[in-house]
């Protein structure tokens, strides 16, 4: 018995470009959550993640021929668009918001202020601290942590998405993890002190 094979991304993209709605929907459903999570983890904002996800797939609607198979997989192409959009949105928000006046990265503040589903998901302090620590990383380190640790992609897949060598991904992740560890220790230590303070008083 033969098993029906799902169409490849490239095939779906080709069909979507000819106006095949189902092909576009299938491609979207296959990648939507990954693109959304990537944008969310990079920005710390659901609004940004939603905007970015929409823009990524709008690019496919507007410019279906913009994908070049010689330059990598469709997934890498989508992540690449998402990455550019996140940076653009963050720049725009920084321009309007100005410099942070509170403690820490403004991204962390955005994340901490999230009101809906993610707050339900991140119930414990450790998870929230991890998110804050990731958002405190510079974007080049943040993206390798998001891809290799949170999305659990291989170095090769991350290199494909980021358009760099596997060795670069490895060394960035090495540095990012060390930085992450220090930040996490500091955040968790801070939480511990805050918890203990009322008892002492």
């Amino acid at each position: 018995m033969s098993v029906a094979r799902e169409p490849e991304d490239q095939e779906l993209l080709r069909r979507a470009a000819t106006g095949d709605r189902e092909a576009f929907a299938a491609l979207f459903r296959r990648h939507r959550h990954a693109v959304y999570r990537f944008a969310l983890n990079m920005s710390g904002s659901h609004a940004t993640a939603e905007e970015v996800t929409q823009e990524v797939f709008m690019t496919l609607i507007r410019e279906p021929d913009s994908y070049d198979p010689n330059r990598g997989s469709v997934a890498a192409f989508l992540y690449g668009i998402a990455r550019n959009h996140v940076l653009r949105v963050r720049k725009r928000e920084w321009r309007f918001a100005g410099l942070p006046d509170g403690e820490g990265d403004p991204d962390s503040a955005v994340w901490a202020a999230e009101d809906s589903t993610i707050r339900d998901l991140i119930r414990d302090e450790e998870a929230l601290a991890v998110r804050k620590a990731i958002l405190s990383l510079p974007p080049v380190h943040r993206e390798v942590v998001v891809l290799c640790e949170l999305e659990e992609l291989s170095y090769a897949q991350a290199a494909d998405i980021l358009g760099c060598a596997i060795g670069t991904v490895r060394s960035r992740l090495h540095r990012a993890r060390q930085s992450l560890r220090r930040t996490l220790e500091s955040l968790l230590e801070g939480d511990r002190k805050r918890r203990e303070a009322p008892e002492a008083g």
Partner: protein
Amino acid sequence: MNCAEFHQLVEALARQEPMDASLRGSALAHSQSCTACRCALSQAQELTAVLRRAAHQNRQVRAPVRIEENLLRAFDERKSSRRVGKGALLARHRWFAAVTASVAAIGIALLSWGPQLDLPPVEQAATIGNDSEGVIASEFFPLQGEMEVPPSESSGVVRVAVPRVTLLAFGLPMNPELAMEPIEAEILVGEDGAAQAIRFLHGRQ
């Protein structure tokens, strides 16, 4: 293995990345004998565990359904606007073709009714041909049924400008975008004043 070498491998060890078995063995052996490196490995492993829990939570994050609704709406709108665009273009082409065909027919009819026209003095066709100005002349096409093209000695030549769409009437290729642009032509006029044949001069506007 020394501490610096171990430091290069500690994250890979903690993430349980595939690595050469002997390298892994010597790294683990070093960590057993060095307290600082053992502590570093332990911290890296702890971070790995924390990140795996975060990855597990991350997998539960879902894109809101409204994104799909918005995108499919945009896809449909784009598709229909393309269809409308194509239809409008086709309609415009049809209309344009009809108009240009009429213009060509009127032009040819006027040429055929040459005797009624007060034509200007004629020039000699022989002066045109493939001339030195880069002007290339087509062959003469008869304008009156099966009639042979008359010998040029017995005819005069009138140079006129006709819409390029006229080319189609003689089976010549034409760029539709330039259909209403003028192209120079020469009309052979018989002794009786009737237009007998036409040729087109490429390279002149």
